């Protein structure tokens, strides 16, 4: 959905260098192709956790795209490697992909509070332009969360959200997914100014600290949703 895309994915963006960790050959090839089609060169594609840890030590990469589940134990090695690399290199951009999403894992990833992090279902990769935009957003310090994670967080909060209007809840959800005002406006077919009004209302009603930049705004919303 190109109108969701803030950075645009046409030609001319800055080339990125990525490490890709995905144990399924079929998906590794698909992801490499898609990333390369968006001027993200895959400098190393690995299929297991130890190789990923080695690759993440490289200093010539801009972002890591990592599958949660990797050999040898096929549990959450990818996620752990992502958390570890962000502990060692705060703010290092990591986009975590998974065949299913778990809000608990999202919390692990967001715990540092630095941004430059994404957590998406593998299904989202099929929307190639949106996926590439997400990669860039993460590489540029943004936060991208899968709508499914946000939806489960929103539904878990339940009653406190009654204070918001339907439209405000929609805006909140899109904010939590990491979208900018412009992207939200395009998505809801309203003006950017209207979105700005909604976000102000949300921040007031939920008693959240006003945040100027998009990323801090996402984190504030997510922290609130996560019940911190």
């Amino acid at each position, binding site marked *: 959905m190109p109108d969701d895309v803030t950075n645009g994915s046409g030609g001319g963006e800055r080339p990125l260098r990525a490490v890709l960790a995905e144990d399924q050959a*079929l998906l590794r090839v698909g992801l490499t192709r898609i990333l390369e089609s968006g001027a993200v060169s895959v400098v190393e594609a690995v299929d297991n956790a130890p190789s990923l840890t080695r690759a993440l030590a490289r200093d010539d990469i801009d972002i890591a795209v990592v599958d949660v589940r990797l050999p040898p134990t*096929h549990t959450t090695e990818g996620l752990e490697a992502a958390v570890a690399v962000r502990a060692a290199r705060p703010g290092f951009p990591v986009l975590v992909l998974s*065949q299913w999403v778990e809000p608990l894992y999202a919390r692990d990833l967001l715990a540092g509070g630095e941004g430059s992090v994404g957590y998406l279902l593998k*299904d989202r990769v*099929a929307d*190639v332009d949106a996926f590439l935009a997400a990669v860039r957003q993460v590489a540029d310090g943004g936060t991208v969360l899968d709508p499914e994670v946000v939806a489960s967080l929103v539904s878990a909060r339940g009653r406190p959200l009654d204070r918001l209007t339907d439209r405000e809840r929609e805006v909140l959800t899109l904010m939590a997914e990491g979208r900018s005002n412009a992207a939200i406006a395009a998505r809801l077919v309203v003006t950017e100014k209207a979105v700005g009004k909604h976000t102000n209302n949300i921040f007031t009603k939920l008693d959240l600290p006003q945040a100027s930049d998009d990323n801090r705004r996402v984190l504030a919303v997510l922290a609130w949703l996560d019940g911190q």
Partner: protein
Amino acid sequence: MTDFEPMPLLAPVHLDHPLPVSGDKLLDRWRLTLVAAGYALSGVPSLVLAILTVLCLCLGPALGVGVLLALLVFPAVAGLTHLHRTASGRLLGREISAGYVETAHLPTLVRPIRWLRDPARWRNVGFLWFSATGGFAMSLLPVALLTMPVTWFIIAVAGGGWTWLLFLVLSGPALAAWWFVTPPLVRARALTERAMLGSSRVADLEQRVEHVEESRAETLDHSAAEVRRIERDLHDGAQARIASVGMSVGLAEKLVRTDPEAAAALLREARETTVSALDDLRSVVRGIHPPVLADRGLSGAVEALALALPVPVSVAVDIPRLPEPVESAAYFAVAECLANVAKHAHAARAWVTGSYDGDRLRLTVGDDGHGGADPRGSGLVGVARRLDAFDGNLRVHSPAGGPTVCEMEVPCRTT
């Protein structure tokens, strides 16, 4: 009872009304007299073993000899009492279980010490003395009564004169007594043996609870492992392929204007991947609950298994629809056995037979391969575990050189 089949020697004893006298009853008493003779004869080995047991106990603490002797005597006692349990069990129409404490896992030399603490073994010893004394007398009586006229006849012929009279007077009552006392005596003996040799009801139940606990734990382990396997199969198979289809189609969508040829290639790839994703899903479904089993029951499903095997398999399975969990366990058990035939046996042909008598499901998988199947191999252990969950069991006969026969039995009562 049909006229063509002779009554088996150890058919259950019925206390019939002794009168009127009939051919059937005469035959039955003949049979029971033979049984009584067997019981009486066993008094001899019983006495020998009883004495040897005492020797073991005396020598045991002092010398290692006692332990070594025990290693010979106790199994012999177990063998003899096993014969009695089987015979008396058949005569009563109910199995008599020994209820020994399991010692197969212990080192040979330690076993006698454990045997000493096993009440079932002590009951055996008690039985030996009974068999050599009271039991001997009890079982000799029918034989003695029946043969008494012969004895008197010999005396009469040898003595001549008035002893003829004695023969006539004493033979009648002896035969009459034989007619009346033989069935109750044999039955009494069998009942006594059950009381002495059978494990107590509490011990039986304890053993059963222990077994049920074990098999429940194993079943839980097994099903947890199955669920993990299914999750892995889906994650690595169909789910990954469908995700990859999404990626190919997504990229094709992006390339369709700028590079239509590349887009077409991606779409072709995506189409092929959907085919393999469906294949994956089908095989996962087969691994959970094969559609043919749901549609045709065990008989059809086993035939389907046989068709898929590279070895010719003759199938003689005539089983009605059974409860689904039993069908499923039996199906996967047969599937594993047949997979073993294909993988390991180097067989030229195999066969599957199956029957159900309203009470027990019986299945046999055999092949003419080179044998030597290991019942402790993971596949067969899995089969045993599946069946154990239903109180069933697996017996594997696989001598080196073959043939291999796997017999499976599952109790299953349909109402």
